[in-house]
């Protein structure tokens, strides 16, 4: 069953304009999640990156991967995720292969490497039209939300 934006928002702490998943289209148990981000022509980051030559910044592709990774984590650790912890990206090994342009449909595939209560390692790839545009290995930490 696909996840719509409201379901995604029930897990992710991110909100527009920094929410980079539109839909979750595949879930395989606790091992794999595939999500989609439709790159609109009027995304605000295109204004400055770059004027007249719009390209999606690599860090935002990583962000889409990280957000999809949190969804994958939440499937392994639903009780912790339900408490809305803080997620901190700790380390990323990434490779960018092709540019992503306005109008592209970015498919983000994540696979679990290791998931613990307090940390996770996830492998991710991003594709446009079945072509891999980026690959990354992400390590992130999870901490209970502090009450301010």
């Amino acid at each position, binding site marked *: 069953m696909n996840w719509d934006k409201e379901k995604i928002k029930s897990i992710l702490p991110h909100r527009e304009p920094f929410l980079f998943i539109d839909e979750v289209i595949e879930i395989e148990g606790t091992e794999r999640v595939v999500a989609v981000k439709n790159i609109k022509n009027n995304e605000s980051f295109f204004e400055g990156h770059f004027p007249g030559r719009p390209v999606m910044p690599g860090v935002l592709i990583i962000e889409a991967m990280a957000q999809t990774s949190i969804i994958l984590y939440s499937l392994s650790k639903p009780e912790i995720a339900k408490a809305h912890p803080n997620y901190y990206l*700790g380390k990323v090994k990434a490779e960018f292969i092709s540019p992503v342009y306005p109008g592209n449909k970015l498919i983000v595939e994540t696979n679990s*490497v*290791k998931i*613990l*209560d*307090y*940390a996770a*390692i996830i492998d991710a790839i991003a594709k446009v039209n079945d072509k891999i545009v980026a690959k990354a290995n992400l*390590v*992130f930490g999870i901490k209970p939300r502090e009450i301010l």
Partner: protein
Amino acid sequence: MANNFEEEIKKLVSDITEVPPEKLKPDADFFKDLGVDSLKAIEIVAAFEKKYRVIIPEKDIPNIRSIRQIIEYTKNLK
């Protein structure tokens, strides 16, 4: 064989901690002596699991704090 295994573990830990293998003493504490934080610890565990095709239960991870303890732990897995 034992020495080879120790060398393999040193290489694996060295790649993640960026401490040269020759400086990795068997009893050096990952957290106190090598500056390993919880995220590097999980990287070491994941690399070990991948290389030796084993699963280390989450409850055991805090008790594995040195190369010697990895080697001892592996003996118990066999």
